[in-house]
């Protein structure tokens, strides 16, 4: 971790990475959860495809090459529903 990253609070570091994922045109991602713990960044939450999960990984590693990335993002289910809800 370089000196400026070391001096940045984990919350601020996570906020910077969140903005990177939102503003990079390859990801445009506002919905994943990002947590920074020491030299590791954890990603969690739902995405629309496996390739998008891979893009998140790629963009994050470019933005924070010194960090370990744990990508726990999951691809949203796309099955038919089992039943509906009756509203009264």
């Amino acid at each position, binding site marked *: 971790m370089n000196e400026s990253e070391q001096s940045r609070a984990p919350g601020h570091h996570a906020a910077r990475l969140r903005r990177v994922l939102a503003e990079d*045109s390859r990801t*445009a991602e*506002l*919905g994943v959860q990002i947590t920074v713990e020491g030299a590791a960044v954890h990603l969690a*939450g*739902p*995405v*629309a*495809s*496996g*390739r*998008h999960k891979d893009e998140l990984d790629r963009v994050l590693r470019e933005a924070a090459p010194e960090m370990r990335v744990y990508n726990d993002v999951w691809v*949203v*289910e*796309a*099955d*038919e*529903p089992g*039943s*509906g*809800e*009756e*509203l*009264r």
Partner: protein
Amino acid sequence: MRIAAVGDVHLDENARGRLRPALERVGRHADVLLLSGDLTRHGTVGEMRVVAEEFSGLPVPVVAVLGNHDHHSDAVPEVTDVLHDHDIEVLEGDSVVLPIGPHRLGIAGVKGFGGGFAGKCASAFGEPEIKAFVRHTVDVADRLRKALDALDADARVALMHYAPIPETLQGEPPEIYPFLGSYLLSEAIDATDVDLAVHGHAHYGAEQGMTPAGVPVRNVAQPVIRTAFAVYSIEP
């Protein structure tokens, strides 16, 4: 009347075809399919073509509102035209009435906007940017109210991207609730006789809630419902 609904599908070329197998069977479950916005990732014409092809040619009518992602490339007229070219209705302060058997289902839709909820919302005071923000959310809610009011139908549905109540946001950090919806949308819903309100936008929210007047509200963001679409039955 059986209403299928989903939002926040965020389709791009990478996700083409994922929903199609389930969508082709939507006629077994529902009479109409509502899309509550954030259909694309960046709001480009190319991505909206993927959306249009995914949701066209289905056995039921498809009615949509756009979401904030669909506005990201400043190409709203162009992406709207793509959906229209594929017979997908797009609502923004207007409505459509669909015949379902002997009955008429009215759907009024807006994207909506933020602003926050009762007691914790923005006011039209201070800098021009804040006043513009609040003025926009007031105007949007007013357009929804007028569109609902004008509906001549046996049952009415309000379709939005942003949330009208905080209950369907539970799971999201409370600090961002003002960016996720506005209580003015629930005021618009409660000012008319609405049977169901549907929205998206909050991927970590809860599916079920209710307006102060008792109108069922459902968050149909795909990460919330975890299926290709949810189905709700209402009595006309």
